[in-house]
């Protein structure tokens, strides 16, 4: 059996600075051994451990869709030892990737339904993977209407801006891009917090799933609105964050009650979460 702690070596192919505060960068990674790349088969919503020899590992959502082949994308916020080291790295540097880890958004269950994607800030990474996955020609017809509500503090803090514009021009996806505030007179999208915009746009709960990922404050105020709109707890899907080490349910720190976020999650329905202690 393979050692589940051993990272696959990957090379940084390119680095994109995503946000105006320069704290978020997207790393495009290519496997050094193509056989490793073939083994790495993920689903939108899963994460991986990024490993930097000498610094450690960090669990990061996979921002590329399984429909994008030949590379992986990770958007990383600069906060601690490992992420700081990673932000110093450039194309050509070698790091490690361990995964894919955790479960994913319940695509099979959502098939045939409308999908409302609600995201805030830098939690948009696995949601980007999800949107790319949903819009792929092989998948688009398997789902109903797709609505996206995505907010950030300011226009310069939105991730994947080129793609947002591209998606906004398509007619098979309804985009609601919003910022908390802006003084840009040419800003042509929404202004307001994600929960407020969700209430205004009022996506229908009929045959719909809501996939929600964002900072705790956004979640806190968005959930009551989704309930008001008629989304049952079973169809509100969330992805959680937790401090992790092993990523495979063994090291013991990321539990919520009997469930490990790394292995049994990170994706849970609100119905599942309400049966667990609120310790996250």
């Amino acid at each position, binding site marked *: 059996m393979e050692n589940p702690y051993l990272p696959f070596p990957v090379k940084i192919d390119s680095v994109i600075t995503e946000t105006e505060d320069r704290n978020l960068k997207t790393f495009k990674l290519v496997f050094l051994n193509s056989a490793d790349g073939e083994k790495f088969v993920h689903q939108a919503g899963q994460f991986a451990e990024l490993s930097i020899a000498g610094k450690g590992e960090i669990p990061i959502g996979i921002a590329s869709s399984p429909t994008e082949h030949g590379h992986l994308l990770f958007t990383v916020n600069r906060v601690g030892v490992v992420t700081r080291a990673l932000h110093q790295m450039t194309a050509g540097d*070698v790091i*490690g990737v361990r995964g894919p880890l955790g479960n994913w958004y319940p695509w099979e269950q959502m098939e045939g339904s409308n999908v409302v994607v609600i995201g805030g800030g830098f939690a948009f990474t696995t949601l980007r993977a999800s949107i790319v996955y949903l819009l792929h020609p092989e998948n688009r017809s398997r789902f109903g209407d797709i609505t996206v509500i995505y907010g950030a503090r300011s226009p310069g803090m939105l991730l994947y801006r080129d793609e947002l514009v591209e998606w906004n021009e398509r007619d098979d996806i309804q985009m609601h891009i919003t910022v908390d505030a802006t003084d840009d007179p040419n800003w042509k999208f929404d202004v307001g917090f994600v929960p407020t915009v969700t209430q205004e746009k009022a996506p229908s709960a009929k045959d719909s799933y809501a996939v929600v990922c964002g900072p705790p404050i956004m979640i806190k105020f968005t959930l009551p609105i989704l309930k008001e709109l008629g989304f049952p707890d079973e169809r509100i899907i969330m992805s959680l964050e937790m401090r992790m080490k092993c990523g495979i349910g063994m*090291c013991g720190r990321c539990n919520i*009650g*009997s*469930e490990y976020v790394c292995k049994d999650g990170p994706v849970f329905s609100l119905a599942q979460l309400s049966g667990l202690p609120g*310790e996250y």
Partner: protein
Amino acid sequence: MVDRVIKKTELADFVARLVEKYRVYAPVREQQTTNFREISTADQVDLSGANTTLSPKSLILPQSETMFEFSLDRTSEKAGILYEIELDPLPRLIFGIRPCDAKAFELLDLNFSTPSHQDPWWARRRQITTLVGLGCNTPCPTCFCTSVGCGPFATEGLDVLLIDLDKEFAIQGITEKGQRLLDDMDIKAEASATKKEAVSAQQSSSLQSIKSVVPTEGLQDHEVNALFNAEFWDKVQFACINCGVCTFVCPTCWCFDIQDEVLKNNGLRLRNWDSCMFPLFTLHGSGHNPRGQKLQRVRQRFMHKLKYFPDKYHNGVACVGCGRCVQQCPVNIDIRQVFLLMNNFKI
């Protein structure tokens, strides 16, 4: 079934033969403490105490162990890539392990050998390790193994069980691995009917001497959130100083941390025991901490052992009743009291 005997006068020879084939670990007295150490002769072994100070879990899950090595030398094409290190392949034998500690390994298998992943170091060491247990003639006042699915002569997890009959040990070969060991070591003397009677007598006297009893039957019926929100946690946690000794001495606490260490251009990825008693254990990069409060951490430890673990694996509580945490807690927090509180909880 008890089927062989070995005289205590033959023990030195028996151990000498074991040492030829195995790395042998046994309880060794070191001033105020007794712990499992590698031994080379029988006179190092001290079987007089009941439980060792630390459990033998470090023999399967070392307090610190190297997972991978790497080079940071940028002129090397291997720079930044992690490589596996070969494990010491010598077979190991833990001599004189108590039944509770052996059962703890079985419980930890549920965490480390799962259908989706196997922890390679845990699994490998389990595979190459033979457990020669020693039944407990004089259980401690803090022992409550019989309440948690174990007992002073329980055989779960053991390959061989020794029963001390004063001048000799009666021997029970339990697994095939254990039987093979006894055959290899040429232990032929058969246990007579009188010996078997002596064993039964010892077993029942040991059972009777265990006075600590904890209730467990109600734990599974409680709704997890009701227990989680119970008011008694405030009392349980009051005296705790979050020293973590309970987690370090506990044979069923397995949580670990992963850290990199670098000296010049050479690095190691290590894993070290960690503890849910420490705030850093769950501190997010953002500064958020789901278990930032002492109450949350104390509750986590007991809820994990007595509720989350049984709910997840349906294999009983993650406690073997060894009583080490009761003996060594500096502020006298007693898990037996917590069993009572949790089991008898009423909303």
